[in-house]
């Protein structure tokens, strides 16, 4: 899988996620988990997904 977004794409993902989180309001956590599950399914690569889960736990 090509895991890199072009800078422009990354920027629009950034904005869209921020706005969706605002829109989700109190349900932002639930929303993030839904997103994580959907994206995990889209990658079809469980190892990469689990690896991201580990990496994101760092520096919280």
């Amino acid at each position: 899988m090509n895991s890199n977004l072009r800078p422009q794409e990354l920027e629009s993902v950034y904005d869209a996620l921020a706005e969706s989180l605002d829109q989700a309001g109190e349900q932002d956590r639930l929303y993030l988990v839904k997103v994580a599950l959907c994206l995990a399914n889209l990658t079809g690569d469980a190892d990469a997904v689990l690896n991201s889960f580990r990496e994101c736990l760092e520096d919280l």
Partner: protein
Amino acid sequence: MHQPDTTPRHSIYYDYRVYPFSRPPEMDGHSLNHQVVIVGAGPIGMMTALNLAQHGIPSVVLEADNQVSHGSRAIVFTRRSMEILQQVGVTARILEKALPWSRGNSFYRGQCVFRMEAPDTPDSRFRPMYNLQQQYLEEYILDQVMHSELIEMRWASKVMAVEQDDNSVHLTVDTPEGEYRLTSDWLVAADGARSFVRSALNQRMEGASYSGQFVIADIRIDLDFPTERRAYFDPEWNPGNTVLMHREPDNIWRIDYQLPQGETPEQALSEASLHQRINAQLKMVGIDAPWELDWCSVYSARTLTLPDYRVGRVVFTGDAAHILPIFGVRGANTGLQDCQNLAWKLALHIKGVAGLDLVDSYSSERVQAAREIIDEAGKSTRFMAPPSKGYRLLRDATLSLSLQKDFVGPLFHWRTSRAHNYPDSSLNTAADNAVFASGPANGMPLENIQLSENNYLFDHLDNAFNLLLFNLTPVQLDQMQTLQANLRAEEIPINLLHVTSRPAEQAEPSVTQLVDISGHMRSAYGAGSGSVYLARPDHHVAARWLSLDVAAVKQAIDNILNKA
């Protein structure tokens, strides 16, 4: 003095019978040495006794109570359980009463978000699942027990102390007429989840307990829903929790729901609370009909097992050996597999035909099964009753996604009790196992086959080593009969089943002929002419050969009996 209540329990559909205490010979100064004493006449204790009796081993069953199960408790029995029950002859009555089913539905916000169908096959006499109240199951098993001359039921007999030495187990039993002592070579502890024997021997279980508590209520109501499992997630009247509904015979429905945190079982079982919640659930599914409560109880989900099911001359089985969450109908169904695994091994050991290793293989095979079940059951439990913030978020996200995304469907899978495999059992012999193209592999139970109308492979299996022989020549069949005669002379029970496409007009008396003209069974078993399957008395395959080698068959049986 131990005197259980002698009034029949109340039920709106089941007529409880009180079984009388009768004074045992030990109380009149006779000292008898029993081969096997079983503590507990729940389904698993009684099934152990029936199974032992099929091997000619007598047993005494001590039961503290004097009636069958209080309330329905286990209500779902799997196909594998039916095969085990068929072996001791109780399925005919179950089939008259029980409700067969195979589908499960998960509902969220009024929508059926996941529907599952357990695979069915015309090759089985039994459907994937049957609903029947535990009282009926126990009654049918008990009827069979009463017909056996080898089983002595002792009601109102409560075990108060257990001690053992190298040769025997000594029990103190309390009864309505006082205490007595009893000695046995072996003790089977089938005394349930709160096993007295387990605590008396200081045996500790390993595993986890979940904090969620659940109400089980059985009500009588006229409902039009089919017999299918119905799970309702996050219903409006019980936010965040799960409600299950299941049909039982006699117009009884089980409603099962989680308690809000912090509520005590007493509060949850109060009449007002039950009525309010059951009515809320019925209203949600669009039902406005009168109903009547039969029985209710509170339970919590636990996944615990003893690490070893044999402690000296005491063997644990059923709930005494492990406590499993009831999601996935595991309690009774697992116990049935336990006692079927145990009985033939203990019987052959007692007869002097097999070493102690065979009894220990019961422990290793079934502890392993319990651990697998605990793993699977843990998954279901974490979905039904999330134990932490993280699990709750994931469960809620899955529910939310389920309204639009099919990919989350499998997360709703309820992982029903299944037949366990023993692929790594020391009782297996590799032989040609790996090269068969199809059929049950080493460690798996045999697969049923429909041979003709109302005639199935399992109808012909004995509580013995079952050898499936495919299209043998007359000379080969002769050799197998010689082997059979030699083994029987050593008290090793053996059943020859000749699966043939050329049925003999005059069948050999010591061979069961299974006619397979179409070759359906041959192909399901990946067998050619001369192929052989060796199945243990509990139906699990121990070895298979593409072509017959009589000496190898004998050696595989010796390996099981640890005589190699």
